[in-house]
């Protein structure tokens, strides 16, 4: 008897953690973001040549760079990457970030993807964020591709349920289902990149942030990716893209964000921007990308020095 009444009782609605109210209409608010990097400082010198002398020099100079955060430090010490970028990005826009040289673009997308803290300013996200740059956080060659993707996503704080749901969609999205259960060391890098990209799209979060994502090698992934971009505005999903290939971005994006000499030049729909800043876009197309510093930082694998 008791059981029956319980079964018939209306189910209690789950309380939602966030309230649904009419929002401000934009997905990302970027407020006066600046970023400096200590290019000419002794930090770089130490990173190139790790010795006692450079370490002491570094320790002596750090006090001069203390104003780093507020931008008061000596200009020779710090190289600006972004200065006072303020922009609101509407829901459902596919934004391409373009600059000359590629340094500011990379910095902005790294900051948006929470891979790096800005020097000043605040960014507010309205919705769940999937950052493609973060998702490759785990690389254990002896584990399968599926385990690697799942573990990497867990490391950057994606909930388990979302990971499971996304993993079910990955084979259909990418058409590379048979590679998922192979050890990572047996798969080519292009396929790994494709699978990671498929996973980021399959998470189906409100905001997707990606640098250099639009270079899918496999055809299935390429068509799925085009579909994803085409459907995103209708679904209210926001995508932020950066690429070396400016002309490809123009074809994919509804909005463009131009950065000139570390400052925001313009932001708006692609067609308008193309009319207004045709000269700038031409320059961006022809300028070669500066080589980005890549210090080799493989995780060490040593187990000595163990006492007790």
């Amino acid at each position, binding site marked *: 008897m008791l059981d029956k009444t319980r079964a018939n009782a209306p189910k209690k609605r789950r309380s939602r953690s966030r309230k649904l109210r009419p929002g401000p209409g934009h997905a990302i608010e970027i407020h006066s973001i600046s970023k400096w990097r200590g290019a000419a400082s002794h930090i770089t010198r130490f990173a190139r040549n790790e010795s006692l002398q450079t370490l002491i020099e570094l320790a002596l100079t750090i006090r001069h760079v203390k104003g780093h955060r507020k931008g008061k430090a000596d200009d020779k010490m710090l190289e600006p990457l972004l200065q006072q970028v303020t922009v609101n990005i509407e829901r459902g826009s596919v934004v391409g970030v373009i600059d000359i040289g590629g340094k500011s673009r990379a910095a902005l997308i790294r900051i948006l993807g929470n891979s*790096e*803290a*800005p020097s000043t300013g605040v960014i*507010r996200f309205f*919705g769940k964020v999937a950052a493609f740059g973060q998702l490759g*956080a785990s690389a254990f060659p002896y584990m399968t591709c599926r385990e690697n993707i799942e573990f990497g996503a867990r490391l950057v704080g994606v909930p388990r349920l979302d990971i499971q749901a996304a993993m079910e969609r990955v084979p259909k999205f990418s058409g590379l289902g048979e590679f998922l259960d192979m050890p990572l060391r047996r798969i080519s890098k292009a396929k790994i990149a494709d699978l990671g990209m498929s996973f980021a799209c399959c998470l189906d979060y409100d905001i997707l942030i990606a640098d250099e994502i639009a270079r899918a090698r496999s055809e299935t992934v390429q068509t799925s990716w085009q579909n994803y971009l085409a459907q995103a505005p209708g679904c209210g999903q926001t995508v932020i893209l950066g690429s070396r290939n400016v002309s490809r971005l123009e074809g994919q994006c509804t909005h463009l964000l131009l950065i000139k000499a570390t400052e925001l030049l313009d932001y708006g729909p692609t067609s308008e921007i193309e009319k207004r800043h045709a000269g700038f876009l031409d320059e961006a197309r022809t300028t070669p990308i500066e080589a980005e510093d890549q210090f080799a930082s*493989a*995780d*060490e694998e040593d187990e000595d020095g163990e006492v007790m």
Partner: protein
Amino acid sequence: MDRSGMTSQVVATPTFVVRPLTLNTFRYLYRCARALKFIPALGHRFLMDIYRQTILGWWWLVIRALLPTLGIIAIFQHVPSFQPEGLPYGLYVISGMLLWTILSTTLLRCTRSLRRTQTLQMKLAIPKMIYVLGSGAIPLVFFCIFAAVLIIGIGIEYFSSGIMYLKFGWNLLLLPIPVGLVFLLCIGIASFTSVALVFARDARFIIPLMTQLWFYFTPIIYTIDIMPPSWQFVIMHVNPVSPLIEMLRWSLFGVGTWDAMSLAVSATICLLVFLLGARFLMRTEWVLNELM
């Protein structure tokens, strides 16, 4: 993939906010507290580093934790002056190692944490303290192993000699205090040493040596009564771990000498070292970011 039916939710309050690095220690600790959800996955990663590609797998953790202690018990139980009153020597050492294992493994593992996770740090901008705390998963596992062995030991003593050494009562409530304080102390020290290890690998040779030296100045394998009085004072009031170990033994077995004075000194040292470590880590964070 068909997504024609779905629309993303419109949210009024920001779900995620990116801010610049802070220079306020307490705000930094608050941000660490908000990023605690990253610790389980990080801890799993650190644990996997130990036993990956091994045949024995998880058992390596047990073996590495226990073998040295069993050796100590086997040898030193024959030294008459080391024997405590009213407690078998085995239980005495294991209860001491229960706390010491936290100290030694935290210092060793958390020191390596920042250098081990450099690729991850380039991708995930959370306070560096979280990486140091995340490798605290290893000492936690070691602690659990020793706790299990201690319970087994008490059980064996109970069934063989019929004496229950574990004292049931409110004294067991004091157990988390020494454990927590030692953990804070070690995280504080490891904040300094982990940054040092990023700059110079000398730190990894110094830490085991210092830990070994510290081990002899802590009453784990001997009782404090066998020392001369001046040494007793030094050990109890200068070494912050000794009163905590004595307190742990007292809360478990009702055996041990500790007073409020030495406990206050050691608690102050532990908290101070933790706060200083957090402050140091906070202020060096941008240097580390640029080095990556």
